[in-house]
């Protein structure tokens, strides 16, 4: 460090005459010591696990018994594991719903919160509370509300003359019900992202549209929505990643059940690792899962770029 400092000082002294940009670049190199502590932590708890997972995925490794190198056998097993394939489709089904619904509702909510109305601050605070609340705590409350006989939700349905639902206790309704919790939980984040976008919109196009006699729906459809597109895409990407990774609420409410009806990739992964202690196989699942997440994220990023080009 002392060496870096003195040369920085020297550069500062002689730099008065030197090109400013070059000086800045010369400075930049001296800032690496600031990053070292964080780099150590990141390597230890983030990069090391990645590398170790890759290596483990090539092992047959049942915790408690021995370990042996098996090459790609774990991946071959994944190719034929029907339970894994089901978990992928389930995850994609869950993700599709848990992206589209919060994004649509989040845009609507952002449009509402972008207007001025009495008690707006209070309403917005209440609206974003679900996002910050401890997932386990709210998942437990939802579990109680879903109770088929005693839950408050079936009572509400009965008030509208709708027959009771089995909610998370039936194979056909469990995923949509879990999506309901996810929508409740994460629509606020989409709202915040879109609201940030709305705040940055120019006023001129709206004035022009008003002069031309456009209805407010037309203004929304042909001005607001295209201008918001980049922000909406960001929300879609974040929602996609988070929905693929959803774990806490699913685990607390159903633990993958009934049967395997809500067993997403993450739950399948958890069971293999920490219920069956199949560390090698679980690591292979991690690698495939990670690839899937990165792949979908890149696909969405790529479509965003293309979308941008089309708009221009």
């Amino acid at each position, binding site marked *: 460090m002392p060496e870096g400092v003195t040369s*920085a000082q020297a550069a500062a002294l002689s730099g008065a005459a030197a090109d400013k940009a070059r000086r800045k670049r010369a400075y930049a190199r001296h800032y690496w010591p*600031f990053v070292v*502590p964080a780099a150590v932590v990141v390597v230890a708890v983030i990069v090391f696990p990645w590398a170790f997972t890759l290596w483990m995925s090539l092992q047959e490794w049942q915790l408690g018994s021995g370990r042996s190198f098996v090459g790609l056998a774990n991946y071959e097993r994944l190719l034929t594991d029907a339970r894994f394939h089901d978990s992928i489709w389930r995850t994609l089904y869950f993700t599709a719903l848990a992206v589209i619904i919060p994004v649509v509702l989040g845009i609507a909510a952002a449009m509402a919160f972008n207007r001025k109305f009495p008690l707006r601050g209070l309403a917005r605070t209440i609206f974003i509370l679900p996002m910050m609340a401890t997932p386990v705590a709210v998942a437990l409350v939802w579990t109680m509300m879903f109770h088929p006989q005693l839950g408050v939700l079936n009572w509400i349905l009965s008030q509208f003359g709708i027959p009771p639902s089995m909610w998370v206790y039936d194979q056909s309704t469990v995923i949509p019900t879990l999506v309901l919790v996810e929508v409740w939980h994460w629509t606020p984040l989409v709202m915040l992202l879109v609201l940030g976008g709305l705040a940055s919109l120019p006023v001129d196009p709206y004035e022009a549209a008003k002069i031309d006699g456009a209805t407010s729906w037309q203004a929304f459809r042909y001005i607001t929505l295209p201008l918001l597109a980049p922000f909406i895409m960001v929300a879609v990407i974040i929602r996609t990643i988070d929905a693929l990774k959803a774990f806490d609420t699913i685990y607390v409410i159903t633990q993958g059940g009934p049967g395997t009806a809500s067993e997403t990739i*993450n739950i399948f*992964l958890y069971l293999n690792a920490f219920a069956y202690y199949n560390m090698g196989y679980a690591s292979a699942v991690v690698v495939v899962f990670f690839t899937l997440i990165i792949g979908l994220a890149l696909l969405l990023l790529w479509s965003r770029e293309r979308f941008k080009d089309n708009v221009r």
Partner: protein
Amino acid sequence: MKARPIRRWLHDLAFGLSVIALVSPAALVFLWMLSLALKTEIDNVAFPPVFIPNPPTLDNFRAVFERNDFLNQTLNSVIVSFSATGIALLVGVPAGYGIAKMRAHKAAVLILIARITPGLSYLIPLFLLFQWIGLTGTIWPIVITHLVLTVPIAVWVMIGFFEGLPAELEEAALVDGATIWQAFRHVALPLARPGITVATILAFIFSWNNFIFAMVLAGRETRTLPVAVNNMLTFEQISWGPLSAAALLVTLPVVVLTLVAQKQIVAGLTQGGVKGG
């Protein structure tokens, strides 16, 4: 002339109703949690449901504090969240500064990928590692794994913040003969206080709310609150009052924090989000 105000009034009414429709799911779930926590067990399983506790009782809260080792678990949660947040700031604030100064955007991408990766994928290797070095059963594995959450968010928020600071003041300090460390310590750091506040709040909330790391790594004595509350469901299926009281107590600190520091939280999340894309 007369039709206009009425139309306008109807329009406002429709708008008001839609705002209520948007906000009520959030409000009602929390109110129902409060209601369950303040009612007797008989009222909690009544059908049709009893909505207003009459009379409200604190027995459920008493039961939580008496039976479940709740204070010890609270202490665990406090230790874990404070340590993980503190370490994250200690390494994350300088790192954010260094990355912003060096314009090392590749390092930022690494942070981003860390955010994308599912928590479970860190857990398997670290679980084995902790077994080997014999840390299992202590609180340290939980603190260390929580760094996976807190360090990236702290670095991420601080990069954005330091990039937004004007460089002139530090440059002036350097020209006057300050070392880069002094320029950081006495010029940039005081200016960065709002950013540090945002990073602290978000890191704390992420750590406090986390369930999966402690669920796998905690022993009987080292359970954090989310794990403890989840265990209450498993063992006391129909005891809704104490369960809701415990759930309420767990989420109370973050709810209060959200009410108090809403501005910072929104700023941090939208910056992280918008830049995250």
